[in-house]
């Protein structure tokens, strides 16, 4: 059976991080499984966990009373779901729902924040990785917002 540090090295999110860093963050992690339809987190709830998806597929959703539920993004093998654990007030902005059976590594956000506070080098290394994910998601959201394939105006 593979250890959590070994599982984490499969994810591009952890590529480039020292083994010592991975071992340190793995201390805040556990494995998790979700059936299709299970919620990983819900908007408005406390963001105390984040997930690295090992296998499966997760939809990041927005509930809109006038348009129903809209899927804004999907998260796949090796990718990260959620960064609200890092930023006050630590509340989820969106829902995340497994759309197929999904296995993940789940991190305790408070545990990670504590380690980052005590070890700025770790905090910086982790923040760089999270910033990359946030940057890519921001770029994607901007492009989606353009509605490039909508009717020309």
């Amino acid at each position, binding site marked *: 059976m593979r250890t959590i540090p070994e599982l984490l090295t499969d994810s591009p999110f952890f590529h480039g991080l020292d083994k010592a860093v991975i071992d340190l963050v793995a201390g805040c992690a556990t494995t998790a499984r979700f059936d299709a339809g299970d919620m990983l987190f819900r908007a408005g709830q406390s963001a105390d966990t984040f997930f690295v998806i090992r296998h499966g597929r997760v939809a990041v959703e927005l509930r809109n009373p006038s348009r129903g*539920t809209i899927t804004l993004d999907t998260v796949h093998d090796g990718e990260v779901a959620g960064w609200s654990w890092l930023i006050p007030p630590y509340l989820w902005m969106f829902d995340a*729902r497994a759309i*197929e059976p999904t296995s993940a590594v789940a991190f305790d956000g408070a545990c990670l924040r504590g380690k980052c506070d005590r070890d700025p080098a770790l905090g910086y290394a982790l923040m760089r990785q999270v910033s990359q994910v946030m940057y890519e998601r921001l770029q994607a959201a901007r492009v*989606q917002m353009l509605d490039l*394939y909508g009717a020309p105006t």
Partner: protein
Amino acid sequence: MTATRTAPPPADPMLPRPFRVTRSHLDTDDTVTLSLEPLDGEPLDFAAGQFTMLHAFGIGEVPISISGDPTWPGPLTHTIRDVGSVTHALVTAQVGEVVGVRGPYGTGWATDAAAGGDVLLAAGGIGLAPLRPALWEIADRREDFGRVVLLYGARSPADVLFAHDLGRWADEHAIDVEITVDYAPPTWRGRVGPVTKLISRAGFDPPNTTALICGPEVMMTLTANALRGRGVPTDRLRLSMERNMKCGVGLCGHCQLREFFLCVDGPVLSYDRLAPLMDVWEF
């Protein structure tokens, strides 16, 4: 004095040939694929990536890429989105109606030049239609190419074009087909996000890859830059630039983009030539 009939003039590039609509297939709620047969029986040969000027009599004409299979001697095929008066007339044309066709015009995808290496095709929205002939060409001689990947971004699941073809390319021709949409209802089981998000997971050897890209210019620029970042040479990034084509034969200048008349020098051009021009406004 006896009137004599002179021989018909040489083919006038501005004179549309009459074609009859033989089939109209509703692809999405605003997009239709028309099959056209020439009234004179003379088939229209074309290269994958070329376009024609389609003429709705009494209304006007528009440039539309050919979306049919160039390896198959069938009707002339165009996939048209209803976005204006001319395209509306074409999209609503009934079987039996006659439309005009000028062309084919412009440069093609030149899939021959990609043989021996990997091919990545990136399509956005209706941009899959001009790439469809290239996909059929590649499928027809699949063994001449390495890995072939189609990355396709659509607005929503309901806007995905050619679903039947996508399945055939994947199942019968070993083409990796990845689809993503910008927005989806909860019932969608596929990917959501921009087409560039698919690139990092696509299997191809960048220095040995030719990329064929078609979609809105913003999508093409982002895709070309992402592929360049992965190491695909810029002269192997080929984009279809479909600006304001009017005459189709390089006379009127409406589609001029600096030194290029896109109707004759394009629509397909390599990114090393296009990159400095991508921010030039269309007029």
